């Protein structure tokens, strides 16, 4: 069974990679990058053989403990796509959980994670081989235990999550929650250098091994007493001559592995007898959308209403909207913190003026957010095509929905910033720019969305860790247009804004030009995008249909 499952895992992984030449090339490049990074880390580890035992212990326990913590967490990100050997797939065969478990575990060692851990093991083993053979042997034991802990905890967690994510609602919430977690994490990473000092210089290079070890010493001490650090603390305790403690850590890890295996086996056995998704009753939708009354009867209104619902109910759209909201906020906060760090006052008029222009960032994301609207429909677009809806109607309905969401948010953002900073003399400029980019952006999105589409992974699948959009080079070109075109259409308004610093009356002109150019681009985008759609509906349906 171990052999069959191992071969199956490798075969299926290879087939998945091989599904298209582009996927293969991108994956190979990505894997080469990862392996290169891991090789460097392994060499750095091997270099630690010259360092003191205490330093080596501190660095390895902290680093590998963190890795052991992150391994199962990373499973969450690839959930729904990485379960090549989902126990449920064996439900029709007369195989018990006990028989399946070793094979599934062995399959877990194969793949990218296994390769990286093996490369790291070489450096780890060299680092711990400067002392006695006994310590070196404990390092081997500790690594084997640690590696098994990573794989087993990952498998157990993903088996438990399979049960949770069997419900669509849980998948939706999980997906949005994960996205917020990633945004929060990236925000923290962004803020970290600012709070650590001047934020300049490469920490990795400038800090010596000893100072790094002393910095990590506290983390390592704590980590070695958590289950994530136990296996890595085995050689560290042995090297310090504390063999009893080393044995305790090893036994603790073994007990933990046994417990995890027990839970996992129970989950495998559950998966073998109930492989299907739980049906459940489904969530009831109460009442009609309060926004329904704002849209007129007829195809345009019905498309707008449907689109509004999707911005809220489709986790992919909701994630897009949230990142659209959060990115400008995070940028504003980052800029403010940066200014604060640089010793400048927020009350400085120049600073206030700079900050007052930040709401424009929100408008800038409108084109990108709108242009993939039709791609998110997937094959459901067929419903609209067989109803004979023409392209302009489609574009107009979607644009209305986008504007019904973006315009109030843009106003709130604008007013918030201006009420806080009070630089009202800049308001016409910023308002004009925002309107030009927002209306123009939705126009560009309406036009570009008619020309470029990509198949999106359907909602309801956790998509992290795997490509969720398939469209090839055309998608890239479309994305580039969506990003750059708003910069072009805003040029007339920008010219007025720039000159308004010398001729204040031009601020009013900027406002008019912004609104006028935005409205014009919006109209043109809807008409031109719609006409192109009319000529290409079947091809568009083909492109947006997910074939994964």
């Amino acid at each position, binding site marked *: 069974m171990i052999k069959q499952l191992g071969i199956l895992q490798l075969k299926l992984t290879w087939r998945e990679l091989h599904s298209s030449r582009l996927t293969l090339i991108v994956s190979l490049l990505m894997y080469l990058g990862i392996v290169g990074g891991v090789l460097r880390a392994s060499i750095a580890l091997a270099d630690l053989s010259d360092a003191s035992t205490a330093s080596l212990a501190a660095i390895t326990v902290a680093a590998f403990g963190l890795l052991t913590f992150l391994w199962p967490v990373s499973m969450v990100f690839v959930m729904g796509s990485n379960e090549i050997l989902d126990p449920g797939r064996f439900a029709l065969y007369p195989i018990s959980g006990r028989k399946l478990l070793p094979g599934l575990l062995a399959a877990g060692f194969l793949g990218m994670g296994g390769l990286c851990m093996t490369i790291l093991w070489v450096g780890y083993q060299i680092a711990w081989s400067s002392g006695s053979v006994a310590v070196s042997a404990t390092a081997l034991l500790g690594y084997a235990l640690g590696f098994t802990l990573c794989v087993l905890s990952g498998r157990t967690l993903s088996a438990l999550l399979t049960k949770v994510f069997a419900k*669509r609602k849980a998948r939706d919430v999980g997906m949005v929650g994960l996205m917020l977690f990633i945004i929060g994490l990236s925000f923290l990473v962004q803020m970290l250098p600012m709070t650590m000092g001047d934020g300049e210089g490469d920490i990795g290079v400038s800090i010596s091994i000893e100072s790094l070890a002393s910095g990590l010493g506290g983390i390592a001490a704590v980590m070695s007493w958590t289950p994530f650090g136990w296996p890595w603390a085995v050689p560290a305790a042995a090297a310090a001559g504390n063999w009893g403690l080393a044995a305790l850590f090893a036994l603790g890890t073994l007990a933990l592995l046994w417990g995890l295996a027990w839970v996992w086996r129970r989950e495998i056995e559950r998966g073998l007898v109930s492989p299907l998704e739980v*049906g*459940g*009753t*489904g*969530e*009831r*939708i*109460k009442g009609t959308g309060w926004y329904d009354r704002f849209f007129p*009867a*007829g*195809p345009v*209104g*019905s*498309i707008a*209403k*449907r689109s509004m*619902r*999707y911005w809220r*109910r*489709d986790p992919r759209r909701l994630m897009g909207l949230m990142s659209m909201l959060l990115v400008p906020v995070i940028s504003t906060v980052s800029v403010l913190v940066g200014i604060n760090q640089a010793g400048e006052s927020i009350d400085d008029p120049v600073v206030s003026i700079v900050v007052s222009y930040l709401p424009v960032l929100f408008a800038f994301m409108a084109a990108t957010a709108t242009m993939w609207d039709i791609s998110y*429909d*997937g*094959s*459901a677009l*067929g*419903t*609209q*095509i*067989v*109803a*004979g*809806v*023409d392209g302009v109607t489609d574009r107009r309905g979607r644009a209305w929905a986008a504007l019904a969401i973006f315009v109030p948010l843009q106003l709130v953002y604008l007013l918030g910033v201006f009420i806080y900073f009070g630089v009202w003399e800049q308001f016409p400029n910023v308002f004009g720019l925002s309107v030009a980019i927002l209306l123009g952006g939705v126009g560009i999105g309406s036009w570009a969305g008619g020309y470029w589409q990509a198949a999106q992974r*359907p*909602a*309801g699948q956790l998509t992290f860790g795997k490509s969720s959009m398939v469209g090839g080079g055309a998608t890239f070109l479309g994305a580039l247009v969506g990003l750059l075109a708003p910069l072009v259409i805003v040029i007339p308004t920008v010219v007025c804004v720039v000159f308004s610093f010398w001729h204040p009356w031009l601020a009013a002109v900027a406002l008019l030009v912004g609104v006028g150019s935005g409205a014009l681009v919006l109209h043109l985008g809807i008409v031109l995008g719609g006409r192109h759609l009319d000529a290409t*509906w*079947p*091809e568009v*349906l*083909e492109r947006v*249909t997910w074939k994964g």
Partner: protein
Amino acid sequence: METMTQPNPYQLDESPNPYEPLRAAAPTPEYDSPQPSESPDLSTLPPPTPPTPPTPTPPAYDLTHPAVEIVGLHKSFGDKHAVDNLTMAVPSGCMFGFVGPNGAGKTTTLSMVTGLLRPDYGTIRLLDFDVWEHPVAAKALIGVLPDGLRLFDRLSGLEMLQLSAELHGISPQVAHERAQQLLEALDLAKDADIMVADYSAGMTKKIGLACALVHNPKLLILDEPFEAVDPVSGQVIREILRQFVAAGGTVIMSSHVMELVETLCDVVGVIAAGHLLAAGPLESVRAGKSLQDRFVELVGGRDLDGEGLSWLGQGH
């Protein structure tokens, strides 16, 4: 496909006249009566048999104004000719069963007929309009249940139906009323507020069918409408379709369940490997056999070589 190389009297693709298939296949009203003999030799005659009752004459369909008229339709995917020079007509006011084995080209043909897939060449007229020249006008006449396409499944069943009706220009009030009635008829009323994403396969099929009906089209094009549907709902759907046809509508449904087509449809078209093998009133297509037998005969049945699988059913 092997069978395609054999000459087949039902091979109608080359027919230049779209109405020809139905006319060719229609039985001539001819009664089987004893022919007078000049010199009857009573000793050699078989014992007298009672005269065969006349076969019921199929209803006369209006072929001067067909609901669907397909001429020279062709679609290839790479080297594979999914639909190959298909010419056929579906008379108005009938229940047309479109049957064929897996991969025969049924869904490809119906996708082209409904404007979801562009043909390589050929023309398709739905009642008064060419689908590819006047798509909006043609699509206004039809209700479609496509196979394999998703619905807007983040809408509730009721919302999905209302959207479908409103996209056809029905007022929100009428759309709401009709949606409620359809949900009731298809036993979905209690699940009307649940997202389509949470529906079972059968429920999704039923809501798809309701979407095809809600704007009261003249022509229904249904791809495998009974797949995954429970028997009770199946019966309701049959009633709805019969009522639709009785009121003058036309239904085209694809299926590979011959018994279903036999009991429901009055006109049948058999397609295999992208070619139309036979088309016409059910009685004439099945030529005195069951539709299942006739179908297997037309598409070329394969006898299972019993020797090769003799181990089956004998334990390990």
